């Protein structure tokens, strides 16, 4: 397994020509599920390009295919039509090369492993030495501000802390791409705000590409550099909103006028997708 270090300059941009390649390129993607009654079109003609260093949110109501799209990128589902490339290769090859870290809706921590051993799980699978495992784990645990909790077990932590462990685990092998499926959905708003801020700081510091699924408009606008609005039946992209909010943000940006404008445009897109536009 090749070393996972990358050269970076001070602004966080990559110093290799591979940087010019988009992280994820989706063209004309289709996914039709065969069910007992009728076929269900989960994704219809999806076109999307995600560049390195982007923070892209997929937002939409239930059933719009946002999670399905994320799972196709992660090679957890197979598309039935169209093309998709992750880091210039097929999703399966990207998965086998461990090019991304996935954070699920629930922490999905193994209860028989301590926090530390949960974080080193992917590193064990990749066959890294014990010394290297512990080094990397210590680094990412500090990144999510959970130093001191290494020996605790998942059930001894709060929901928010468990999700932070889950994020640390996804970062432990230093993938360039982070795929997050409504990771803060089960938490209360106060914790959510705090974790949103931490995630943003993490993104700034590490320069990773993040694709983030949510159904909260404020969360999407707060976190992203680009917001992809989707709608269901069939799952399709309704609008892509570029956000020109400054890259380093704090929670006060929510009071900003530009924030409200972007949120409004997202909301319009969601309603248009639902078919009830009243303008």
């Amino acid at each position, binding site marked *: 397994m090749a070393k996972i270090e990358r050269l970076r300059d001070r602004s966080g941009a990559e110093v290799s020509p591979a940087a010019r390649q988009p992280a994820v390129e989706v063209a004309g993607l289709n996914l039709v599920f065969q069910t007992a009654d009728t076929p269900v079109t989960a994704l219809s003609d999806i076109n999307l390009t995600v560049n390195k260093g982007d923070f892209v949110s997929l937002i939409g109501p239930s059933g719009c295919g946002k999670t399905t799209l994320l799972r196709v990128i992660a090679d*957890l589902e197979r598309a039935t039509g169209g093309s998709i490339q992750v880091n210039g290769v097929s999703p399966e090859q990207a*998965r086998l090369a461990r090019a991304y870290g*996935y954070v699920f809706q629930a922490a*999905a921590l*193994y209860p028989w492993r301590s926090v530390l051993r949960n974080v080193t799980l*992917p590193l064990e699978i990749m066959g890294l030495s014990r010394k290297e495992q512990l080094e990397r784990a210590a680094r990412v645990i500090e990144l999510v501000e959970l130093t001191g909790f290494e020996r605790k077990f998942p*059930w001894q932590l709060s929901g928010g802390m468990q999700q932070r462990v889950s994020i640390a685990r996804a970062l432990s092998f230093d993938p360039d791409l982070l795929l997050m499926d409504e990771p803060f959905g089960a938490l209360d708003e106060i914790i959510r705000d705090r974790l949103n801020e931490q995630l943003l700081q993490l993104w700034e510091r590490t320069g990773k590409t993040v694709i983030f699924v949510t159904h909260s408009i404020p969360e999407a606008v707060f976190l992203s550099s680009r917001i992809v609005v989707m709608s269901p039946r069939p799952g399709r992209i309704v609008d892509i909103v570029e956000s020109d909010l400054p890259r380093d943000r704090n929670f006060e940006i929510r009071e900003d006028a530009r924030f409200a404008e972007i949120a409004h445009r997202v909301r319009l897109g969601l309603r248009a997708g639902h078919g009830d536009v009243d303008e």
Partner: protein
Amino acid sequence: MKFRRGDIVLAVTVLAGAAALFLPLGGVGLWPRADMLLWIAALIVAALPALDYLARPIAAFLALLGAVMAGAALYGLIGAGARGVHAYGLWLGVIVLVVLSWRAMALSAALAAAYKSNLLHLAAPILLGVWTIFMWQVLTVGFDIPRVLLPPPSDIAASMVASSRDLALDFVQTFIRAMIPGYVIGCGAGFIVGVLVDRVPFLQRGLLPLGNLVSALPIVAVAPIMVMWFGFDWQSKAAVVVIMTFFPMLVSTIAGLAALSRMELDLMRTYAATYGQTLWKARLQAAMPFIFNALKINSTLALIGAIVAEFFGTPVVGMGFRISTEVGRMNISMVWATIVVAAVAGSAAYGALALMERIVTFWHPSLRKVA
């Protein structure tokens, strides 16, 4: 002073206890002096907790002490010769003892709940156990119940001491030579087949219903066939145990390997983990609660199988052999002695498995303490 229901019950009990001193005793004229004094002291001690000034632990202790003293007094009374249905004093005394013991158990149970102590939690069941044995002794001796029907615990203890060598040899034959090899082979094979079949869903779908069906069948009935194939000695009994333990273990292994949710399996997929890595690092651990459940159930099944299989033919040693021959000789206290040995052995095995389960599956919601 307000009178609670418990106080009224206690008052009635004490009065009944006093009355017991004056009723006929069937064979004995009056209560022997020592026992009478002990009885009166017991009633006084048991009545003390009615005073509200006492702290809970002291009240529980006094209730217990009163019950123990009353029990000792009755034991002495029986020893002095009180017998028979017409010994009204004796039987009223027994009823009083039942009420006092119940109060002692209730108070210690409440105490255990209040103090959340593991040791105290054992108090109530231990009390019940001791009380049961005591009542057994009193009732069998007091009512002159034929020894052939139900021997008193003292007889059973005597049998155990007198025939300890035979009992030890029986234990080795049945438990060590037949049950343990059978248990290890049966559970091991069930587990291995469960893991092998994991890769072949077709076989899984076929074996699961069959396994459930076979688990319901009277497997011990194959014992005569095993004797025919493997001979009279321990091998045939071990074979019965193998068959009895194989299917529950197989079914539980298959169920346990299916325990992890889609999400956790997807996680392993995103790490590009191999089948072996997923099995070893995730699915086997998640399967452990199911497997230990089967191991515990199998330990009881294995002991029963080994003993009952001996009813169908065995060399002149073994717990099943001992039971069937002593029953034929109407030496019932020896039968009970064998049963005590089997029960202690079975409980020890079950307890050892429960301990291992606690260590391995410490993370399971049913076993963990919230930090």
